[in-house]
């Protein structure tokens, strides 16, 4: 990690500069991020992110419990895309153990994952606006988000930490109520997006605050392994759903929204466009929902796999989420490494935040949409 700030601390404070500890208890540090800022007036000279305040040792826990017992942990790594992570783990195990998944379960997984993605982006939209001082959009977004949480709560039994996936399928089938609720939610969201456009996207103050702020260049993004909407805002059309399609994503017609400027506004626009694309995917999935079973005929009670190394990646709401599983052939993983997108984004922070103003720090950290428990794991 960048040790610039610590070096200077040891040398002593330069004239006219000071250190500001932003976080871990700070209203806009998205949980427990701590930024050690070396400042001159309002200007950031150096920045060092200090992480680990929400470390729960998920990777270590995976080493002393069976794959099935580890399943509930996966939704808790990133509490905003719990569904995506949970189902990603199931898909990784299925790939490792060669378990077949019924058609209907695959399609249901796509629907709930995309709902989860919209939910995550809506929360980001609200909190990002909150970070740059607009309080009202937050409540509008939460109003929309509440519908998704209700829909997912009804089918999975919880609002955030779903544990909805099972090896070889999903726990519960969706019914007509779910389908009609989802369809009416899509109509509602499509009606609301133009309002957000007018309230936020066209707002002069908002554009001034975001345009040209916190530019992450393509080279920087590649150097730090930045993925997800942040990378797409810098101009690289990389999306795991298109690059290495998993599940049944290759069936659906959707676009990867990209921008080239790589600033906060580009990241904002990419995420708003992604919500629309997710709506498209859900609609196609609902239209072509096959009948049939939602889990294999024989429940998977013990995962049997050959010893070896397996890697499986999905596109979470924040980017490329990968699981590297080392199996010794038993029911318990020898090692699981989680490659989480926010960690890579955060590692670019010292470069990006250098030379910005304190208000920009908040805007940039808000715009890249990091989830701290997912960084700390």
């Amino acid at each position: 990690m960048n040790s610039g700030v610590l070096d200077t601390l040891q040398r002593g404070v330069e004239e006219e500069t000071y250190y500001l500890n932003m976080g871990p208890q700070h209203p806009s540090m998205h949980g427990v991020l701590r930024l050690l800022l070396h400042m001159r007036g309002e200007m950031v000279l150096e920045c060092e992110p200090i992480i680990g305040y929400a470390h729960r040792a998920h990777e270590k826990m995976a080493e002393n419990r069976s794959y099935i017992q580890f399943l509930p942990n996966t939704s808790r790594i990133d509490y905003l895309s719990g569904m995506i992570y949970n189902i990603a783990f199931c898909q990784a195990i299925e790939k490792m153990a060669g378990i077949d998944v019924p058609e209907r379960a695959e399609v249901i997984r796509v629907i709930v994952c995309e709902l989860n993605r919209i939910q995550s982006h809506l929360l980001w939209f609200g909190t990002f606006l909150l970070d740059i001082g607009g309080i009202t959009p937050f409540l509008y977004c939460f109003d929309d988000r509440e519908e998704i949480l209700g829909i997912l709560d009804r089918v999975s039994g919880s609002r955030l930490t779903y544990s909805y996936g099972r090896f070889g399928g999903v726990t519960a089938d969706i019914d007509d109520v779910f389908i009609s609720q989802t369809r009416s939610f899509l109509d509602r969201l499509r009606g609301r997006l133009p309002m957000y456009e007018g309230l936020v996207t066209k707002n002069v103050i908002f554009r001034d605050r975001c345009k040209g702020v916190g530019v992450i260049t393509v080279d920087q993004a590649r150097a730090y392994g930045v993925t997800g909407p942040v990378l797409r805002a810098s101009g690289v059309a990389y999306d795991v759903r298109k690059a290495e399609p998993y599940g049944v994503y290759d069936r659906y017609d959707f676009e990867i929204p990209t921008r080239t400027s790589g600033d906060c506004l580009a990241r904002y626009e990419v995420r708003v466009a992604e919500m629309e694309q997710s709506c498209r995917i859900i609609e196609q999935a609902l239209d072509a929902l096959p009948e049939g079973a939602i889990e294999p005929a024989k429940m998977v009670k013990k995962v049997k796999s050959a010893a070896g190394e397996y890697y499986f990646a999905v596109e979470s709401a924040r980017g490329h989420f990968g699981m590297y599983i080392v199996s010794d052939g038993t029911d318990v993983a020898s090692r699981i490494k989680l490659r989480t997108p926010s960690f890579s984004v955060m590692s670019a922070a010292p470069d990006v935040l250098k030379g910005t103003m304190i208000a920009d720090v908040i805007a940039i950290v808000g715009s890249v949409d990091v989830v701290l428990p997912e960084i700390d794991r």
Partner: protein
Amino acid sequence: MPRTLLDIFPNPLIAVGIGITAVMTVLSVNTLFCIWFERKVSAWIQLRMGPMEVGFHGTMQTVADMVKLLGKQLVTPKGIDKPLYHLAPIVVFAPVVAAASLMPFSESVAITNTNIGLVLVFMFGGFASIGIFMGGWGSNNKYALLGAMRSVAQNISYEIPLILSSLSVVLLVGAMGREFAVDGGVIQANGMNLAHITGVQAQRGVWFLLLQPLAFIIFFIAVLAETNRAPFDIPEAESELIAGFHTEYSGMRFGLFFFAEFSNMFIGAMVATILFLGGWDGPVLPGPAWFFLKTYFLVFCMMWIRWTYPRLRFDQLMTFAWGILVPLSILNLLITAFLVKVF
């Protein structure tokens, strides 16, 4: 022209006593009302109900909050600059009371009426930034210091367009050459006298909003910045500086800052009403009713703006003041002066 308390009660002690009591009562009731009103307006904008539990539609909510605030422990952090820290809330609050006493809210009675009313209002307004800086500096907290530095820079920058835009009204009042009958005879309208400014608008039947629309807009924006209201609330920008200059204040010390903020809003709206919206002037309803209706309409506009717009960045705020508002207000003043001279 309104009779002052000193005209009614010749004994200055009684007059001052009644004046202070009246102003404090009005300000307290206003603050209690404005906090409830702000919560209701924000709830209405944000599709919520707002406070509903205490009293009819939550009307007693702020009273309960105030009682809670009075009962809270005053936490004094370590390493503070004691005199500055303890004086700051008072220095912020006292000028507000003084400024509020200058407002001519009706054509018959006012608390005071001086020929330098406008100058005094701006002077008392300027005090606030001293108090805020004292609080920010004395708190021994970097966030508070940042907030205080921002506040001083912002208040000084926005005072210039504030005063320049109101000067064009002063010029107009002087140029109209109106006269008022008082008990002893006739007096010339004085551009710096708040009651005279309203009186001229009432006599001519035209509000200065129509003659000086640009000045009104500049003045209103500057008032928003002077009172630290969004989108110019950067001294206390809660998403950046936690609570800005009052981060380390708790209990009723914080309450005084809050009190001063809402009272400042009220005074800013009152001055705008007097300068541009004809003060007590209006048909059917009595003068004070019109005065407070207009004032609260402007207060509502401030809240409306706050709950709609995001916050500016510090450098954008300064650029806006020096690059747009100051040149525009100087231009407006020059054009007004030219027109006044020609016609």
